């Protein structure tokens, strides 16, 4: 196995606002292999977007390190970061906010080329038009403004922009969350096509579990700034160990409607606690139906549990055994 | 709130200090003819140098500055060589005139401007609104000296010729001599300053009010069944006033300008006219004294305005 493309070790990000400090990302470690898609899921507010920006060095890190392609980029100045930016791109969530309304689309897509002085004006224009074709846009619309395009098309523009510098890694921060469901599939398929054609590695962030299942090879689940479980899609969807993962994944509508009855629908009590005042010990314990005394006191380490293979890591002191059900307040009446 | 006040006061003092330095440095770039004028045309360079020395004008700049600041803090703003009077006296005589003029005009323009603006906004596109919009445009575009001369011509000259000597051509009557005469002499100057600014405030409050009236929370209030008048004056006005207050803070500095012109035209011996005369005479102590007093007044007024702003918009208090 080759070296991982991206390694995050004990990454922490705190924000201070007035008297409060928020630990948006708390001691997160993960690794992404070249060519794979790591899906990062969690509720809104769990810190996944913040983690993405830390990894992309759009925020400075409060703690920990990030290594890209073997190089430590944790605390590089913006000038030293520039060459790495070519290899690592971001696709943003908001199709309306992520494109400058006063710039023409061709200029937006070719921005990276211009910044890194790739080719001259004519070559760049050709490149941009080629990219537009690749993502499914009409290259003749080179001179139009973002306002002339629909949401789905704007996301395609964002994809083209990210692709322009032929990066190795693309961080997709909820790329389809703002789109109509009917358009989502098209953009997802585009991303998958591009991955095989351009040999891309994706960090795919989303709160939509059905998408993450379709897109990822591995999944990491975040809760309140921490990773609670990570493993292959298989592992997590068949043998999830962490109660939160189990609850989360139980909400995904299965592909087979007939299987719905046998599915256990878990409803978790309470809400996501405020990251300003996180619970002690395991962050999930206030809502966990399996909580024990040691959960309140000790922070569970992220490591293989029970008889899992070394790729499947869980942060739980009392993980679910294979075949074991989660027993919370049951919503459906089925036995 | 107290913290806000303290911070603002300190900032104000700092600004004031910078102004004194700026003015002081500025004026010492210019040749000062004080000694020469006192000595008379026939004086020899030696005599002038002697007078310079006696007056302390040949000492190093920074020493003069420190002395000046020290004196100022004791209420002594120096001595006016041209008129043989302490600067403080000159200022003390001129100050009430300018104050009457400025405060009166400010009150008139605020009330007039905001009232008209609100009326305009609550009856958009009506005849009243259109008439107000056009008149404000005309007054807003007019320099105050044009308005002043116009007022003199029509309200003094023509009116007096026609037999109605309501307004004098100028001059000041102190309040102690009676409210009637005091007002009578101030009406035209007040109007000269106020009408131009009122127009600005009419436009501003109209736009601001229209913005606020279009907001959803106003529609909610209306939907709740509150009468239109209550909606307007309670809910909308408070938010609409914020930009007006901000503008007022900025305009305080400009008020000084309007005062200067008006005092010139109507021969009111206030700070403005005194300052202009002093400048043409290169009378340094008076100039510095007046600029200092005017700046202090502006800084204080700004602090008061900020207080109002904080009252209207609670978010400001937290910063």
């Amino acid at each position, binding site marked *: 196995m080759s070296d991982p493309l991206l390694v995050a070790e004990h990454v922490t990000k705190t924000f201070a606002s007035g008297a409060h400090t928020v630990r948006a990302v708390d001691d997160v470690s993960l690794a992404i292999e070249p060519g794979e898609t790591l899906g990062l899921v969690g509720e809104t507010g769990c810190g996944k977007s913040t983690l993405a920006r830390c990894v992309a060095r759009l925020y400075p890190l409060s703690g920990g390190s990030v290594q890209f392609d073997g190089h430590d980029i944790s605390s590089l100045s*913006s000038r030293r970061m520039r060459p790495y930016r070519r290899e690592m791109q971001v696709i943003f969530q908001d199709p309306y906010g992520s494109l400058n309304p006063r710039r023409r689309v061709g200029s937006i897509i070719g921005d990276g080329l211009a910044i890194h002085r790739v080719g001259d004006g004519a070559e760049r224009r050709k490149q941009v038009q080629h990219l537009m074709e690749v993502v499914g846009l009409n290259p003749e619309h080179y001179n139009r403004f973002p306002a002339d395009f629909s949401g789905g098309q704007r996301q395609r523009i964002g994809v083209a922009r990210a692709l322009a510098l032929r990066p190795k890694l693309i961080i997709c921060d909820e790329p389809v969350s703002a789109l109509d469901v009917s358009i989502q599939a098209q953009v997802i398929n585009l991303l998958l096509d591009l991955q095989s054609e351009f040999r891309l590695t994706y960090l795919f962030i989303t709160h939509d579990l059905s998408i993450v299942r379709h897109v990822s090879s591995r999944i990491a689940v975040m809760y309140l700034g921490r990773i609670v479980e990570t493993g292959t899609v298989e592992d997590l969807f068949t043998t999830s160990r962490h109660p939160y993962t189990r609850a989360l994944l139980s909400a995904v509508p299965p592909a087979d409607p007939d299987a719905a009855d046998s599915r256990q629908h878990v409803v978790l009590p309470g809400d996501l606690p405020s990251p300003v005042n996180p619970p002690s010990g395991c962050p999930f314990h206030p809502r966990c139906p399996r909580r024990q005394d040691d959960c309140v006191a000790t922070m569970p380490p992220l490591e293989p549990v029970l008889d899992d293979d070394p790729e499947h890591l869980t942060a739980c002191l009392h993980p679910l055994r294979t075949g074991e059900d989660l027993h919370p307040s049951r919503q459906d009446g089925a036995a | 709130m107290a913290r806000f006040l303290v911070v603002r006061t300190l900032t104000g003092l700092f600004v004031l200090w910078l102004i004194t330095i700026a003015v002081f440095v500025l004026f010492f770039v210019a040749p000062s003819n004080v000694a020469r004028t006192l000595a008379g045309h026939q004086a020899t360079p030696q005599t002038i140098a002697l007078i310079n020395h006696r007056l302390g004008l040949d000492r190093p700049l920074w020493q003069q500055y420190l002395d000046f600041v020290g004196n100022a803090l004791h209420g002594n703003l120096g001595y006016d060589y041209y008129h043989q009077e302490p600067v403080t006296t000159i200022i003390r005589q001129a100050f009430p005139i300018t104050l009457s003029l400025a405060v009166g005009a400010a009150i008139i323009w605020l009330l007039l401007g905001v009232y008209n603006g609100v009326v305009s906004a609550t009856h958009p596109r009506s005849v009243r609104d259109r008439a107000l919009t056009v008149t404000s445009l005309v007054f807003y575009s007019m320099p105050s000296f044009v308005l002043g*001369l116009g007022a003199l011509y029509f309200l003094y000259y023509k009116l007096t010729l026609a037999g109605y000597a309501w307004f004098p051509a100028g001059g000041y009557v102190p309040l102690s001599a009676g409210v009637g005469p005091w007002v009578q002499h101030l009406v035209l100057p007040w109007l000269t300053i106020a009408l131009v600014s009122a127009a600005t405030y009419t436009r501003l409050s109209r736009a601001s009010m229209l913005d606020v009236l279009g907001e959803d929370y106003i529609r909610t209030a209306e939907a709740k069944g509150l009468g239109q008048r209550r909606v307007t004056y309670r809910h909308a006005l408070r938010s609409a006033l914020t930009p007006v207050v901000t503008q007022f803070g900025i305009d305080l500095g400009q008020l000084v300008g309007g005062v200067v012109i008006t005092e010139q035209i109507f021969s009111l011996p206030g700070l403005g006219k005194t300052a202009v005369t002093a400048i043409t005479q290169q009378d340094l102590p008076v100039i510095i004294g007046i600029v200092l007093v005017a700046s202090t007044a502006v800084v204080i007024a700004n602090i008061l305005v900020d207080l109002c702003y904080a009252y209207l918009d609670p978010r400001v208090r937290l910063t």
Partner: protein
Amino acid sequence: MSLHPVVTAEQELEEVHSDVVGRGPWALAWRRLRADRVAMGSLAVVVLMVLIAVFAPVFAHITGHPPNMQYHQAGLTPDGLPKAPNSTFWLGTDDLGRDILVRIAYGARISLGVGVVATLLTVVVGVVLGLLAGFLGGFVDLVIARLVDLVLSIPFLLVAIALVSVSGPSLTITVLVISMFSWASMARIVRGQVLFLKEREFVEAARSLGASDLRIMFVDVLPNVLAPVIVYTTLLIPVVIIVQATLSFLGLGLPAPAADWGGMISEAQNYYTVAWWFVLFPSLALLITTIAFNLLGDGVRDAVDPRIDRLVRPR
């Protein structure tokens, strides 16, 4: 999963209507402005004033009266007072027997010249400093913001008068003095806008591409700031014109015998009872110019930033 671009339903629609030309925000604004008759009218007046200024010598040529030539015989009454408008002097004469019409034309040069140059200077300084302060934040912002506060709290006219009188009146000084005080409001507006724009995702996107701060400021942020800047600029010109006229009214404009609207009105002060034309015509010239610029500014603002709630609200 094909590698060929997927033709979506939206795209099919696109192809059919591809002759619908996409119009950028500026083109749209221009179209709105063109449709605004009041704004176009005031633009015409402004252009007229500019032409008058440019072709001032033509006025002198046609009437045969140079602007500074004093006609003591033909231009003054036997008592030595100005003459009313007549066939020789179309707008009358001033206290020294000079042709008011010609002097107004030459005065336009000064008012418009100072108006435009001072405004341009103000805009450049204000926008750059506002950009830097808003975008870079930190120490730069602190210094610039404090400077702005300071400049805004100084009583402008007094200090301006002082400065001009100390250095001697000249066009350059007037322009510099006016700009020195006006840049602050512009900077404040720009800074506010930039602070808001800084948080937008397209700025983050530019950063993620590796753009430098400088590039982001001028390529990404500036075009979005231009709209309020343009509006404010158009509305600033009449203010500058008035300020310049005020300064010359107080005797601090160009030295006599220069023809300048403010100065003319100042000279006319003592004659307003006997020579109304002496006060009226320069004042009218001033008023017409400023009203035109103000109306134009309003039109520009409506064109660049149309708001739905400026339309009729049913009551």
